[in-house]
């Protein structure tokens, strides 16, 4: 069996399971797995950026959070008692301020466009992309070293988090936005605990994975593979490496934004904790465990880590041990299995195929 066929089969199997699952789950678990699938989307973005382009962004939480906030703003305004001005804003207003989005609190006019859901969705994808474009342009043009890129992205996420917490009248502050209406598009209401939301997320994951796979299988993916190994050498072959990195970085930011959008839809809130250091870094472990250079691996890694994490946090015995397990995961994956579960699986498959492949070479 050719390697290509095996890969195809793996993807098919994975998505078959994903799409079949809701029929075996109650509504609570349907929602749970939907959230994990959201995380999987995020992990695909990280795998693309880190595994393929060598950019370790420790601040994907920024883009994820922005995506969540953008749509949450629209969903907040979709709630009847948040019109014309959201409840939390009323609590933070000056006594004599007009009850109008344009001027209720400083900057509240920024909320006005979000009365349209489409703006919320578009902003959730484009704003992260634009931020990534600006930051990425400067970073890659100036050939900022990989470690510094990680620190810069981390610091940026922290800045985002601080700005949000600190602007309570505008953003809901520390508590975030939690008074959201369920997503409603064209008359269809998406119940977070129903199959509709689950399939929305699953479909998004499928699209993201397909697009990413497509990118990776073109000549661009080939160039990226070279860049990952020796980006200086690639320059001497005539490629503007920074443009490639910029493209992938923006794309992965957009993916994180999409994941954030869906997070708000499934979990019905957006909060500054989504931009925290630990959340951003834990996204990396999902991709690392599953296999940083494998898109499917990253999905599976996200599912596994989060599944075990939720199970552990609900068990009195396991709960105090979980952060240690997580920490150990970081250490061990990096030390012992740098290519993650996907790497191990590929190794097994290669061993199984060995007698055959020698024949192929001889022919």
């Amino acid at each position, binding site marked *: 069996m050719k390697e290509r066929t095996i890969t195809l089969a793996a993807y098919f199997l994975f998505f078959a399971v994903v799409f079949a699952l809701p029929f075996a789950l109650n509504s609570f678990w349907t929602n749970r797995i939907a959230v994990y699938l959201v995380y999987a989307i995020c992990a695909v973005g990280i795998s693309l950026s880190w595994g393929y382009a060598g950019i370790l962004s420790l601040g994907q939480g920024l883009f994820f959070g922005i995506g969540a906030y953008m749509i949450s703003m629209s969903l907040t305004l979709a709630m009847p008692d948040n019109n014309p001005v959201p409840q939390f804003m009323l609590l933070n207003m000056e006594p004599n301020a007009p009850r109008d989005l344009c001027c209720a609190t400083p900057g509240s006019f920024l909320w006005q466009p979000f009365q349209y859901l489409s703006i919320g969705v578009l902003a959730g994808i484009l704003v992260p992309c634009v931020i990534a474009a600006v930051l990425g342009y400067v970073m890659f043009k100036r050939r*900022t070293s990989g470690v510094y890129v990680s620190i810069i992205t981390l610091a940026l996420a922290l800045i985002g988090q601080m700005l949000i917490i600190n602007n309570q009248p505008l953003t809901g502050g520390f508590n975030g936005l939690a008074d959201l209406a369920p997503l409603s598009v064209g008359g269809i209401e998406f119940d977070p605990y129903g199959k509709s939301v689950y399939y929305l997320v699953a479909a998004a994951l499928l699209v993201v994975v397909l697009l990413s796979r497509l990118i990776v299988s073109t000549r661009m993916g080939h160039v990226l593979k070279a860049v990952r190994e020796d980006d200086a050498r690639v320059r001497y072959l005539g490629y503007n490496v920074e443009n490639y990195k910029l493209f992938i970085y923006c794309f992965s930011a957009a993916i994180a934004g999409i994941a954030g959008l869906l997070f708000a839809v499934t979990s019905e809130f957006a909060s500054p904790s989504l931009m925290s250091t630990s959340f951003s870094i834990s996204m990396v472990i999902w991709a690392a465990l599953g296999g940083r250079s494998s898109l499917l691996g990253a999905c599976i890694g996200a599912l596994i880590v989060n599944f075990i994490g939720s199970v552990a946090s609900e068990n009195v015995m396991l709960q105090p041990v979980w952060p240690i397990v*997580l*920490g*150990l995961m970081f250490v061990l994956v990096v*030390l012992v299995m740098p290519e993650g579960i996907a790497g191990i699986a590929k190794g097994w498959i290669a061993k199984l195929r060995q007698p055959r492949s020698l024949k192929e070479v001889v022919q």
Partner: protein
Amino acid sequence: METFVIGLSIASILFIVALGLAIVYGTMKVINLAHGEMVMIGAYVTVLASKHLGLGIYSCLPLAFLVAALFGLAIERLVVRPLYGRLLDTLLATWGIALILQQLIRIHFGFGLFGIHIDGLGSDLQNVPVPPELQQTLHILGTNIPVYRAFVFGVAVVLGLVSWWLIYKTRFGSQLRAVSAARDITAACGVNDKRINALAFAYGSGLAGVAGVLVSGFMTVSPDMGAPYVIDAFMVVVAGGVGHLLGTVLSAGILGEVQSFVATWSNDVYGRTVLFAFVILILLFKPQGLFVSRNR
């Protein structure tokens, strides 16, 4: 003026922590995300030593140095050394160590799982008794200077001088500098660069431990107190320029004062935001640091 004094003590702590990070980063190009936890460990050593051994802050200074240095040694040997050259992976692995250390404190090093609670550990906030002579306030030139803050400053100065002597005046120091500048050649000359790495890491961690003792004197001690120090210390290192002791001093001073003044005038959060933005700009446009001259 009080703001200036407060800024000075913030700067002193920052300086000690940053110095430790700078030594490690300068020698091995490794960013140790568990460095902040060394501060936390130093603080907890103080808590435990005062509760169980009756030791005061003065004795805890060398004790915390030792304990933190030992932790550093272990981390270097087990995690950092096998990952040598893989900087991004080291970043992740040390973050994992940080998570583990934090949680270990929370669960009383595992004993908590069995219901055994060690006084001084756990998720609760802890406090450390400060000797009475340090609790005073001096009145000099019309300003109130808390003695403790002066003490912190004093310790920082001493540590700075000791480190300077160590790095520039001893054989170990010259080996350290040689390894930072040209590892392969130095190793080829017979210097055991692996040992230098380990010692540098231990020394850097030890310094952070000492900072932890000082911090415990005026802040509550909790398992997650360490995390902010890594980011702040890294900013100081980057701004000051790696491998430049004076640069670290100056940038710690500047950043400490800026933080203090901004906190007084507007808002602590905005202070940090501005600081972070400033450091991002430095990393982008002057990654060698503000105080380093152009070299090839």
